[in-house]
């Protein structure tokens, strides 16, 4: 049975993705649930919770109120808190119960906006389908559509892309650790690129909203590719899907980036032919976000591996057109990929790799991912951007 998970925990849900993308923007996040979903997010999906002053709350949804449609009690609580805490905006984030009773998130948000005089957004999430990735996309798109899209005609863009300005798109701690984000910024700077904005991590609202000043978007995750695709449609901004990973992969990446700057056309790192430069042999398996795994594939193929299987646990999206990419949410298939007999290299979250039965002669690279193992292996996190992969 595909839906029975006996070994792996549930992965981060869509509501955690919304929270993660909005976390540092000065808003007030209200998770409309009884307590457990908020516990998932703040306790296990948000590494920035400790020492933070961000406003994340549980509405404390109760059964009678849900049955009777008594929304006033929650409107009153949110209004009171917003008046006291003075956030820049309010985000009402859904959980399974509001979703199945047909709670009107947008109408509720509109009501709050009228009462408070600040923007309010409703997010129809429920932890039921998709993953945190969908929440990240939903959150960033909604904010940009609200704040920037209506003023699109007034935006001044650098038409010839001569400024070498880029946005990092789709970064949240659920996918990318703070250390890796810093490493990415550094390598971009070394190569003469200026990071204009990060959507959406280690930033603030002003920085987020200035995204249009960049020339090219760097989609660093599957969420990033979906956002970048939307920005391409709405703002005519080209993107590059991928990350600079490993010595060969980094050179490959910057060759791709140069091409995007030259042509103004979007591309993926897997679309450029790879020069095999190393002498590794055999097969490799990478279990990660599809874009991150595709970028590792580039490096591993360049190192000489004859075949690199990209296994994405979070669905198939644009930005990952590798011929061999596999997409699965089936636990048996995930564990089968971890245990692929023919492979001599396997990379993925330690929680996945611990189920590898035969480890002899296999190089195992642990890539702790907050959306999978949360804080359990956070201490093992490592920088894999640029030359540091496998070092």
């Amino acid at each position, binding site marked *: *049975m595909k*839906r*029975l*998970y*006996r*070994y792996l*925990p*549930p*992965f*981060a*849900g*869509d*509501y*955690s993705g919304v929270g993660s993308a909005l976390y540092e923007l000065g808003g007030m996040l*209200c998770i409309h*649930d*009884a*307590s*457990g*979903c*908020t*516990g*998932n997010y*703040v*306790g*296990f999906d948000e590494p920035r*919770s*400790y020492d933070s*002053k*961000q*406003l*994340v*709350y*549980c*509405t*404390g*949804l*109760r*059964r009678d109120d*849900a*049955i009777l449609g008594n929304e006033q009690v929650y409107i009153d*609580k*949110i209004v*009171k*808190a917003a008046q*006291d*805490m003075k956030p820049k905006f309010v985000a009402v984030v859904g959980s*399974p*119960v509001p979703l*199945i*009773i047909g709670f009107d998130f947008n109408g509720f948000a509109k009501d709050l906006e009228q009462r408070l005089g600040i923007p309010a957004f409703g997010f129809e999430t*429920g*932890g*039921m*389908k998709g*993953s945190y990735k969908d929440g990240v996309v939903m959150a960033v798109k909604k904010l940009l559509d609200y704040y920037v899209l209506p003023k699109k005609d007034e935006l001044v863009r650098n038409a010839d892309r001569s400024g070498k300005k880029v946005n990092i798109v789709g970064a949240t701690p659920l996918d990318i650790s703070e250390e890796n984000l810093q490493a990415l910024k550094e390598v971009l700077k070394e190569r003469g690129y200026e990071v204009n904005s990060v959507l959406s991590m280690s930033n603030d609202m002003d920085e987020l909203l200035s995204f249009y000043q960049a020339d090219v978007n760097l989609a660093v995750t599957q969420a990033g590719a979906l956002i970048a695709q939307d920005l391409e449609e709405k703002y005519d901004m080209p993107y590059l899907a991928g990350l600079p990973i490993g010595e060969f992969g980094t050179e490959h990446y910057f060759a791709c980036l140069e091409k995007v700057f030259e042509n103004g056309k979007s591309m993926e790192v897997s679309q450029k032919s790879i020069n095999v430069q190393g002498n590794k042999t055999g097969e490799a398996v990478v279990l990660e976000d599809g874009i991150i795994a595709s970028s590792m594939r580039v490096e591993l193929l360049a190192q000489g591996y004859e075949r690199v299987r990209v296994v994405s646990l979070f669905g198939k999206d644009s930005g990952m057109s590798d011929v061999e990419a596999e997409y699965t949410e089936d636990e048996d298939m995930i564990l089968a990929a971890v245990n692929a007999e023919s492979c001599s290299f396997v990379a993925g979250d330690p*929680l996945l790799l611990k189920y590898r039965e035969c480890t002899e002669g296999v190089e195992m690279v642990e890539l702790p991912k907050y959306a999978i193992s*949360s*804080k*359990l292996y956070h201490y093992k996190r490592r920088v894999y951007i640029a030359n540091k992969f496998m070092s």
Partner: protein
Amino acid sequence: MCLNNCFEKTLQYSSPGHGGWGIIRVAALIPESHQMFICPSACFRHGALGAMQHGYKDRTSYLYITPADIVSGYDNLILEGAEELLSKDKSIKVLFLFVPCMDDFIGTDIEAIASEVQKRHSGIVVRACHMNPIAAETKKPPLVTTMHSMFSAIETENCATEDAVNLCGSFALIEEECELFDFLGDYGISVRQLGNYRTYEEFCEMGRSRYNLIMRPAGKFAAEYMDKHYGTFSFKYMITYDIDELRTNYEDWAKLLNEKHSKKENVAFELDVIERETKKSIAHAVEKLKGLPISVASSAVLRPCTLARALIKYGFTVKEVLVQEVLPVDREAFQYICENHPEIQISQPRHHKSAVRNNKDTHMVAIGFEGAYLRESDYVVDLSGDEGMYGYYGVRRLMEMLEKAVEEKADLRKMIEEYGAVV
């Protein structure tokens, strides 16, 4: 923000110091049991990761339901999932089928499904459970229904025939160093605790005990179930750190036991001696803390106001009590503090204003992680949910913990991570 008798229902802030065992860990105390959660994929992430932290993940599994299942119902899916699980894991003796909040609106007859699974698998006890915090303010909150499911799993003959007391409501083990063992031992009564059992069969002996001891309100539901179904008798002497209350409790309890049991000749339990020793350890701790302000949080003890009142009586300086809601068993002490110690701040740790910490003076010792986090206190007593505490032993342990806490500044983040709380 709720000061002294001014409690508000607000948006709830959940600090890193908030949380406890969680129901999954409690239910996992039943040996050889397995919990299958029938839920949307993101529902029980905290429970699964908590299970990994505490080493019982191999006794939980997840059957994910989709929006399409909600439309069509998922009764058959549960039957199929249980079938597959039980065919793959032959070690399961008790299977708990958990449905989440959402199911309260769907109305799956999970009890009937549990019966059907049990019918198909003789020798396995199958029970329905509701992990529905959305029902927290009803008469059947999740802890109550889970307790019923846990204790209804007992299958034994000769119910309520053995001279033993089941400890109800405290999930962490109470060490045998606690005088409770001597007190009961003098009457030939043994102590039975959930955490001591390694097999399902052993656990069933709780149904053969004559007595239950309700130590915290959560234990009431377990005790009531056993009284009704197995014919046990329940005593209610809640955990307290007040030595006067302890004396009264033991004296009352002794009277009741004397009616039906005779004492050994050489008794091990000597109330005066124990009380004297406890007073000494209290005096020692008071001396060591030298008036250092104390914050008491409800994450540490069930009755924070009662503890605060006791600490004041002993000569400590109590600065603050953090309590989200005053329980009936703590109300008298709350009134006492309001009337006699208006200088003590009483505040709600989950109030929306708690999200922003702005502490100028952190030179204090906090009892409990939640207060320690919110007040950024220099010193921390790492007590949660009265775990392992009872009687004079609990008071002496608390004094030792206070003394140890003030020896060096706490690494609270590490403490919280090691504890591994779940909301």
